């Protein structure tokens, strides 16, 4: 079946511009994660949704970052007044619900959106 998709794949923004990044998770996946990956670094957690509920937004770097998943499927990560330090690859991942036993369900990653802020 189709994997996680993200759009756009590349985005160039002028400093101060607002951007919106979209994630389409695997159908039926309850959990959705956003990560930010700066050049030369591993992905860093931004926020987590279970269905439409945003249960953890502890990784969002500032109040310029906002994420939503209003119907429990597609999610949008919005960055307001972009800054040069926002330049990174933004990764979305989805999984089925985590179980108490047997460990975490596998997270499936999208291809990412590469954001460049000039």
């Amino acid at each position, binding site marked *: 079946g189709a994997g*996680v998709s993200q759009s756009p794949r590349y985005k160039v923004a002028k400093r101060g511009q607002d951007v919106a990044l979209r994630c389409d998770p695997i159908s039926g996946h309850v959990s959705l*994660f956003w990560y930010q990956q700066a050049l030369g670094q591993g*992905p860093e957690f931004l926020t987590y949704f279970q269905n439409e509920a945003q249960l953890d937004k502890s990784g969002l770097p500032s109040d310029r970052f906002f994420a939503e998943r209003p119907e429990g499927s597609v999610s949008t990560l919005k960055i307001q007044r972009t800054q040069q330090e926002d330049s990174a690859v933004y990764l979305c991942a989805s999984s089925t619900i*985590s179980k108490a036993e047997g460990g975490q369900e596998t997270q499936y*990653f999208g291809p990412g959106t590469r954001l460049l802020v000039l």
Partner: protein
Amino acid sequence: AQRVTQPEKLLSVFKGAPVELKCNYSYSGSPELFWYVQYSRQRLQLLLRHISRESIKGFTADLNKGETSFHLKKPFAQEEDSAMYYCALSGFVYGNKLVFGAGTILRVKS
């Protein structure tokens, strides 16, 4: 604080040589450890997890709680193993977010 350390940015080996990608972690509790791999022009994907105790593509990793390590090993490297490898841990209350290391590039030379 939860942290994953991969001390090598780049590991270059010859085909057929053994490979060991190092990973150390710090976590107060019982984390779950993973290795993710990203081949050229492909997306990040799970390679293996310690809880499964299985070998994938000839790779194995053993969780050593005493040394807080989860090194990835393969006895004989193949050219198609060339990729970026990330060690990650999870173990949080909500949704099991992943904490990643900075990654190690494995280059297998012919």
